[in-house]
């Protein structure tokens, strides 16, 4: 099963350019037409489940607006230095 992830899109930075949306391999993103950022843009958000936390959206975001998280599946894996 694919990893489960989630993202946060910052209202301060997002300009609704849609680059993340078109890049997301899981097609789980869209502009949130019901909200406006303080600058007046419709920000991106995930509108359905399926985010894998692959961070591709963050890689393409020109405004470093996205923070990506992933559920930790293996806990307590010892970290080798």
């Amino acid at each position: 099963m694919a990893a489960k992830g989630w993202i946060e899109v910052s209202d301060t930075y997002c300009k609704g350019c849609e680059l993340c949306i078109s890049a997301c391999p899981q097609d789980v993103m869209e502009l949130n037409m019901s909200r406006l950022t303080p600058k007046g843009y419709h920000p991106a958000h995930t509108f359905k489940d399926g985010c894998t936390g692959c961070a591709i959206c963050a890689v393409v975001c020109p405004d470093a607006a996205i923070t990506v998280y992933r559920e930790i599946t293996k806990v307590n894996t010892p970290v080798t230095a």
Partner: protein
Amino acid sequence: MTTPANNLVYERPEAFTETPTHYCPGCTHGVAHRLVAEVLEEMNITDKTIGVAPVGCAVFAYNYFDVDFVEAPHGRAPAMATGVKRVLPDRVVFTYQGDGDLASIGMGEIVHAAARGENLTVIFINNANFGMTGGQMAPTTLPGMKTSSSQNGRDVETQGYPIKVSEMLSTLEGVGYCVRRSLHDPKNIRLAKKAIRTAFETQVRGLGFSMVELLSTCPTNWGMTPVNSLKFVEEHMIPAYPLGDYKISDAIKQIKI
């Protein structure tokens, strides 16, 4: 939503300030900025870096990086960077320049900084036009491309041919590292970042002049959506400006990142 730190996959680099950029939505100037910030942070050189901003859309670059910055006259960033680096050789100095800045008015300065092998890193944003002044033709504008100063499409007979800057500079011995990358998709963005990293490593190791040319978009002046702009890069810019490694000196080939 509680988010244990180790759940974090990606977050805004710390080398960035908190100022939102003034770039148009979807403009890949922002991507280039982010990559530079990530590299500075990863290499742990934020503290000793001095940036040189151009005149162009990136004129306010100095607002976004958490490093000392100076702002050069249009095209003269390589000369200004030379002045900084020569008196502070242990600092990391980079210029960030557009194609109008670097390839039009600043041609003399970039060629000579490269020929002298100045230990500088140049981030060169090729977006095929003068973004800031409203989209005039740049030396890198594609043949036939319409801009506000080539309104019927660039006519190579009277308006000249595009300059392939990376190819040209690679003829100079002082150049250690010179490559062209693109910012149009995640894979290429990752390759671009690696190149930026190598360029800064080149500088840190004193291996000469390094430059990364980045194919970038200008949705506003190209009159396209950001998404279509990326397609334009892929379909039209890359054929005209092939991606590749134009010069990597032997010493730099050894660098493992």
